[in-house]
């Protein structure tokens, strides 16, 4: 069985005369058919690097990204590549993107990036593109087709004609609960590209799609939402094995809609409340989701973290590395046909801090 060595286990081993304690790399391991092989990648997201002034940045958010990068580099066996899920910067500034990119540059292995709204709305992704390339693209790896979408664009009217300055546009979109914001979308042009891209791929090929916002509708008031989610889902449904992995929500979420499995990833910066705890609004947090623990405000890194993603038989198993909590493992259960938490799925085994109100 493959073994996963984590930073925590390395630290634990320090006291045990160099004997490395190990953790099983996945609870459910299925043999790949054909020529595909099992592999894993790491997923770091939502670092929100925030400039105070000059070379001074918010220490708290810096620490989250630095810690994720350091830990991801210690994983053995090494992951095949690294994904960054968007919102590297807080206000899209060149200084913030540069500072974040400097930290990401320490990562071992190939890095693929997803665009977040905090990276985008100052210069519409121009500087981000100089660092990380096109806003949407696809690639193949060991028999799996990967698609990266820019799901955080919105209407031309809001983007080009509503705000007197680019700085104000960025600030208006940066406020999660700001009623002056605008719903995210993938948009017609990108959907046409996606259709063309997927037409070239066999429906038997496992498909993994990365977006920043959820490609499902959870709560519009905080843009836990993509306005054309149904149209994007319709393009993905014909594939037998489809997973969508998204950032933006800073919390554990998972769901199954038809053939599509959904997993959200944690932020390295700060956690967000589950939207159904906002007393003045309705929300559609997937009923399947066993929430992450309620954040303890006295621990700066609590309810933040990063992920190891195993891709076994083309299915996603997300191993949430939670710095002040026990790891969570959410993976697809082929018998049930949906993702489940490997330990806490049944209501009777859930812990008190998983109850949010």
């Amino acid at each position, binding site marked *: 069985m493959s073994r996963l060595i984590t930073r925590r286990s390395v630290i634990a081993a320090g006291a045990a005369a160099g004997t490395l304690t190990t953790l099983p790399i996945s609870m459910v391991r299925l043999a790949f058919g054909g020529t595909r092989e099992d592999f894993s990648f790491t997923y770091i997201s939502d670092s*929100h690097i925030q400039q105070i002034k000059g070379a001074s940045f918010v220490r708290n958010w810096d620490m989250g990204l630095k810690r994720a990068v350091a830990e991801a580099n210690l994983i053995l066996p090494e992951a095949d590549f690294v994904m960054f899920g968007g919102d590297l910067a807080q206000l899209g500034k060149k200084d913030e993107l540069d500072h974040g990119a400097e930290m990401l540059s320490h990562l071992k292995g190939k890095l693929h990036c997803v665009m977040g709204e905090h990276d985008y709305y100052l210069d519409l992704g121009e500087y981000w593109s100089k660092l990380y390339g096109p806003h949407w693209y696809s690639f193949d790896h060991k028999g799996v087709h990967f698609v990266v979408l820019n799901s955080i664009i919105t209407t031309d009217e809001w983007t080009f004609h509503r705000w007197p300055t680019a700085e104000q546009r960025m600030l208006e979109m940066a406020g999660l*609960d700001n009623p002056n914001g605008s719903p995210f979308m993938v948009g017609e042009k990108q959907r046409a590209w996606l259709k063309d891209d997927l037409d070239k791929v066999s429906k038997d090929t496992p498909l993994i799609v990365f977006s920043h916002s959820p490609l499902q509708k959870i709560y519009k008031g905080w843009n836990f939402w993509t306005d054309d989610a149904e149209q994007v889902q319709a393009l993905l449904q014909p594939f037998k094995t489809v997973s969508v992995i998204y950032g933006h929500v800073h919390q554990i979420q998972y769901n199954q809609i038809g053939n599509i499995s959904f997993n959200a990833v944690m932020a390295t910066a700060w956690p*967000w*409340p589950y939207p159904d705890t906002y*007393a003045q609004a309705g929300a559609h947090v997937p009923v399947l989701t066993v929430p992450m623990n309620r*954040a303890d405000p006295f621990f*700066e890194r609590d309810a933040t973290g990063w992920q190891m993603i195993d891709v076994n038989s083309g299915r996603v198993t997300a191993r949430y590395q939670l710095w002040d909590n026990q790891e969570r493992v959410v993976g697809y259960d082929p018998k049930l046909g949906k993702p489940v938490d490997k330990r806490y799925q049944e209501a009777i085994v859930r812990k008190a801090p998983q109850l949010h*109100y």
Partner: protein
Amino acid sequence: MRRYAIALVLGAVLLSPATRADEFTAADVDRWQGEFDSVAKKGRELWTSGAVGTNGVACAQCHPNAANTHPETYPKFQKQLGKVAQLFEMVNWCIRNPLQGTALAADDPKMTAFVAYIYKERKGVPIDAGKH
């Protein structure tokens, strides 16, 4: 006589409709609600601006719509403080730590504005002091 006169004048003042303690009009209610709303609005501005901190971080970054603040559970025991604490003490904890600012007095108008905004967003949730 003089004492009677004073009593009568006082009685007239007390009985006049405008000053009866147990009488108020819809207009009064509107005005009082307006006063509250304007303070809560000020609280929302402070909540989203980061003006009480020094590093640009705003309360709303972690608490959109003041969610996950649980005002209905205060006062409650906070093990890290080692005592039963009030809501304003937790607001100050956040001002000092994530916002790297200076704590406000309990009756500072800015603190009143914060607390007013937090409660406004939590309207309708039953009081449950002490709940963790």
